[in-house]
């Protein structure tokens, strides 16, 4: 005899039907892209994997954080990964220069590539966080996201490129001017946004 719990099974079937393999393939593609960007960022930070144990350690640490970021988008993992990349980048380049093993100054394309990769890691993490796993996603969401990324990335890389390429950048006024303005914005804008506004009315539901 068939089950007497027809409605219950029916509800489960309806929920299962809601899971589309195409939607999951899309989200999987996003995750793979995210991982690829983090691998690229790690590669650019560590240079090339050689016999140097410090580089292997850096790759290992970043890889562990990257796995966490892939597993849980929207967590603090992306922040840790980006800041970690910046820290290891500074540490490795300073270390190599100080011991004289490799008197290298990072190539401008390497710096800009790393900047782009880190920003895309951040942007993809935000996108993966808001998109639910089994949602029907309108294509305009993705085009809007791409446009927002491009609007920030292109001028950002342009300014970064100027800072790196200009021969007198580190000693000249451009570096300090751009750096000071950027720092002012980075500190001032969040303060401006997050400041308490007792004069503003509460945004409660109107009905």
């Amino acid at each position, binding site marked *: 005899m068939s089950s007497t719990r027809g409605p219950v099974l*029916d509800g489960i079937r309806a929920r299962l039907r809601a899971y589309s393999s195409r939607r999951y393939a899309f989200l999987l593609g996003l995750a793979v892209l995210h991982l690829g960007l983090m691998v690229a960022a790690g590669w650019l930070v560590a240079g090339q994997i050689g016999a140097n144990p410090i580089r292997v350690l850096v790759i290992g640490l970043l890889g562990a954080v990257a796995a966490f970021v892939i597993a849980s988008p929207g967590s603090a993992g992306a922040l840790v990964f980006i800041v970690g990349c*910046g820290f290891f980048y500074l540490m490795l380049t300073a270390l190599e220069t100080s011991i004289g093993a490799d008197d290298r100054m990072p190539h401008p394309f390497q710096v800009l590539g790393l*900047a782009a990769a880190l*920003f895309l890691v951040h942007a993809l993490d935000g996108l993966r966080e808001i998109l639910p796993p089994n949602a029907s996603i*309108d294509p305009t969401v993705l085009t809007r996201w791409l446009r*927002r990324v491009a609007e920030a990335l292109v001028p*950002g890389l342009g300014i970064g490129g100027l800072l790196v390429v200009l021969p007198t950048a580190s000693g000249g006024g451009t570096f300090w001017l751009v750096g000071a303005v950027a720092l002012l914005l980075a500190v001032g804008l*969040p303060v401006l946004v997050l400041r308490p506004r007792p004069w503003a009315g509460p945004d409660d539901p109107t009905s």
Partner: protein
Amino acid sequence: MSPRLAASSYGSRPAPTAVLVRLSTVSVVLLVAGLGLGRPDVVALAAPFTVALFLAVRRARSARVEAELEISRAEVVEGTALDGTLTIRTTGDLDAVVVDVQVGIGLALRDGVRRRAIAVRGGEEVVVNLGIVAARWGHSAVGPIHVNIVTAGLAFAVAVPDRPTHWLTVLPSVERFRSDASLPYAVTAAGSHRSLVRGDGVDFAGIRPFVFGDRLRRVNWRVSQRTGSLQVVDSFTERASEVVVLIDSAQDVGVSGGVGGTASSLDAAVRAAATVTAHHLRRGDAVRLVDVGTRLRFLRRLTGRRDFVVACNWLLDTRLAEVGEAWVPDRVAALAPPRATVLALTPLLDERMTTLVARLRQRGQPVVVVDTLPPDAVPRQLDVYEALARRMWMMERERTVALLVESGCPVVPWTTTGALDRALRELSVAALAPRAAAR
């Protein structure tokens, strides 16, 4: 205008998200390190983040979002779509609006999509249809409905309060059923239903000799001239009958696939009861509904079209539940008036139901059994023993049906309403047949 089941209007300015915190933290850390160490390459790493932060704050300051969620019609019929909309008005661009609609059993989402993400351009008003369809009769839950709006490069969010769960009434669908078959017994003196009682009426019943009291306008002069004696046209009277609908809800077998899909035995019974009730109330007959499930439940005598809503609402509570009083066949038989036609909607799996039908037939009550067992709801046969058990079960079932038919109770499957019409005709013909009277 239909009453609104739920509506909420909400206006808000965007609030920062974790994305903004990340943009700000990364910018500050890299800039401090770059400036402190005099490293332009490190400042270059921070540049895209700082630009994104600046753009996000600039966009968010100009954005004001209004969201209005509305669900109308607290009552719908199976198979119809629920009017549920989310209206969004915004002054700035919204990068993503994620709508998550949760519905209970009995409701379905169009294309099975529970969550959807859309983008809204600034200055536009977008109306999102929630796409809820009433799939199965009953009381179903709509909600909670979550709406998540992010803007300014995902750095700001607009919090829209969740809509709590609301209960929706999904009435059973009524199939087209139009039967001209006369019911065996008329109960009340007037009505629109053709009875088998002869008298003043419209429907032709036959020609008979004139008796004292016949109206002159009923004399058929042509036949009278041919036969040499006065003959009058006899007709059936229009009267109202009474119908008792017995719903066997003790078992619900088969898969309930909603309207348009497969129907379980309880689905078939409820929809058949609604169809039959609608038909007879439209014809002016009185209808009594009795639920003989695990427990006994019955509704008052219904008359008139307005009572159809009462019947539908009562039918929604037909389920496998331990409510009402325990029943025995004699108790139920007492609920059926002596001259009422009984329609028993049953999958014929409960022996008590068979006993009840037999008891009613013994009283001389006209009974039609509507078999609601779905064709695919037969026992499975995996091995030789199960095959044997299935065969025995089917033989026993065929014997039960044969005994019921032999006792003058037609058994028709609820596949098409035409079968029920045929059964009602059989009953009326049987009622006309001469019978032996005890002296």
